[in-house]
């Protein structure tokens, strides 16, 4: 990758225009699908297995991270046959703690890096942060792009930075956060998606969760379409991670419908689709318990992470 001759970032006019009205109408259709009974249970289980259980706060402590890891491994003991979540997502400072707590459970450790959430640091610092997180045991790195440079039109710099980050990751998977809430238009989201994928992203991710709006269905649809077109062009599958603001099971199922109808069966797994969320898991558990008992549930009976 490093010695690949010239890699040129795609220009904005190389990305197709996005039809905003069309996107909104398509999303409205996804939201009208009725998913009931056994298919609903199946979807809820899939959602659980795709969650990146996240804590990204200044007040995080090793104790809180250990607790989150416990929750990741044992979501709700009174529900039999439910999967564990895909990964736990923390700051680099907490990677070692999470790695230790998760042991051999098969749950991955994802770490944000590159001066999350703003990305306002020199590339050198960002690369060091990634290397550190990987050395501490992170399996996945969530990087943020430099939105300032992107909006300034310095696409090549943004592109080169992602290439360098991918190289710094080594074996670890790289998720590239576009922070769509700061990009402004769906056209820029589409362009940024293509730029990130061509620079080597394994996953593209909507948001940090620190900016409103975070993940929305229209933005996610545009990114899924970019993934689809990229797959047709190159044959390489890229994963998708909407993050921030998805806290209800029903909404998560709408996302799965959108995923299924845009990218197809192959992407319906934790390897290719993730939800970045902290409170989604409990709502899904409550819905599963409701399906099992027929009785509406209360948060009082589900552990806080």
């Amino acid at each position, binding site marked *: 990758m490093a010695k690949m001759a010239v890699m040129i970032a795609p220009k904005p006019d190389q990305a197709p225009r996005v039809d905003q009205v069309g996107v909104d109408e398509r999303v409205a259709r996804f939201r009208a699908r009725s998913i009931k009974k056994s298919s609903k249970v199946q979807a809820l289980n899939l959602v659980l297995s795709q969650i990146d259980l996240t804590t990204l706060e200044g007040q995080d402590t090793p104790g809180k991270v250990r607790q989150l890891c416990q929750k990741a491994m044992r979501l709700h003991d009174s529900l039999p046959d439910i999967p564990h979540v895909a990964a736990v997502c923390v700051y680099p400072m907490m990677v070692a703690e999470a790695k230790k707590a998760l042991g051999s459970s098969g749950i991955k450790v994802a770490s944000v890096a590159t001066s999350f959430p703003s990305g306002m640091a020199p590339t050198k610092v960002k690369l060091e942060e990634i290397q550190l997180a990987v050395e501490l045991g992170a399996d996945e790195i969530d990087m943020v792009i430099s939105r300032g440079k992107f909006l300034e039109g310095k696409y090549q710099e943004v592109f080169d930075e992602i290439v360098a980050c991918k190289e710094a990751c080594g074996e670890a998977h790289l998720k590239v956060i576009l922070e769509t809430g700061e990009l402004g238009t769906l056209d820029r989201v589409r362009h940024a998606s293509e730029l990130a994928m061509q620079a080597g992203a394994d996953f593209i991710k909507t948001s940090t969760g620190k900016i409103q709006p975070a993940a929305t269905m229209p933005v996610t649809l545009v990114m899924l379409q970019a993934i689809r077109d990229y797959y047709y062009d190159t044959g390489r599958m890229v994963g998708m991670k909407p993050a921030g603001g998805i806290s209800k099971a029903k909404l998560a199922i709408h996302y799965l419908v959108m995923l299924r109808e845009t990218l197809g069966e192959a992407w319906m797994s934790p390897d290719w689709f993730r939800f970045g969320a902290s409170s989604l898991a409990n709502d899904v558990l409550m819905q599963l318990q409701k399906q099992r008992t027929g009785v509406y549930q209360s948060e*009082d009976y589900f552990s806080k992470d």
Partner: protein
Amino acid sequence: MDKTVKAEGRSIDSASARVKSSAAKPASRGRAKPPAATRLGVAKTYKLYINGKFPRTESGRYFTLADTKGNIAANMCRASRKDFREAVLAARSAFNGWAGASAYLRGQILYRIAEMLEARAEQFVTELKLMGLDKRAASREVTATIDCLVYYAGWTDKYPQVFSSVNPVASSHFNFSILEPVGVVSILARQESALLGFVEAIAPVIAGGNTAIALASEQNPLCAISFAEVLHSSDVPAGVINILSGYRNELAEQFASHMDVNAIIANGDDASEIKMIQEQAANNIKRVIIRKKSIAADPYQIIDVQETKTTWHPIGG
């Protein structure tokens, strides 16, 4: 854009000027009076009241209510269990704010409900008459309802003193018990009394800082739904009281089984329903309050939906 607005403004002005000029010369021009058109009445749509809004039922179902002469009085929303679930969500999110509001404020708001009801008394008398009461009985019921609200408004900052206690204990502790609202309360209103029975059931619950979801009387739901409009103009925070109309035998089980409801008040004496409620409520050890017949307003109805918290505070030593 600006120009068109101005142009429109001018044309409206000139139109009103024309109206004025014609009004200045009455009838002398001999312009014919328009024929007296029969006006179509604007009937009210009786909807649900959830989270401070008036939605229709998500199910799209309704049932027809007949007045005493057998004419259709209204189409009522036949609420579904999903409407109930939404109402519980609203009540739960409103709970902390309402329970944390000062007793004085809760009293003021209850009094405000009474004020609003007083101002709209006539509407409620009309609705009660539609449901078969004679005029005198109808106004008596409305007056009694207003008085009931004022009564509980007065109790909000008094029941804590009256019912909290300092307890004598045989150790060096200062031991005291205070009351706290239980949480979200579901209420099945009395069937026979359309307004008073409904308000009697709600007022002590919210006076004590709980939030409520109430099912209106199936046979006489009109007043309960109109009462939502009174609540809506009384500074009652959204979600504190939620009102559904529908079939009791369809919804009672949900009212009793929902895990996020902390107490249920069931007005009525149907033995099989009471048994079902007790069984379903056992799921989360809900408090069950059965009121077989109407009882006069008293502060114990506030206490019915309060928890007692007792604190042991070491002294001396």
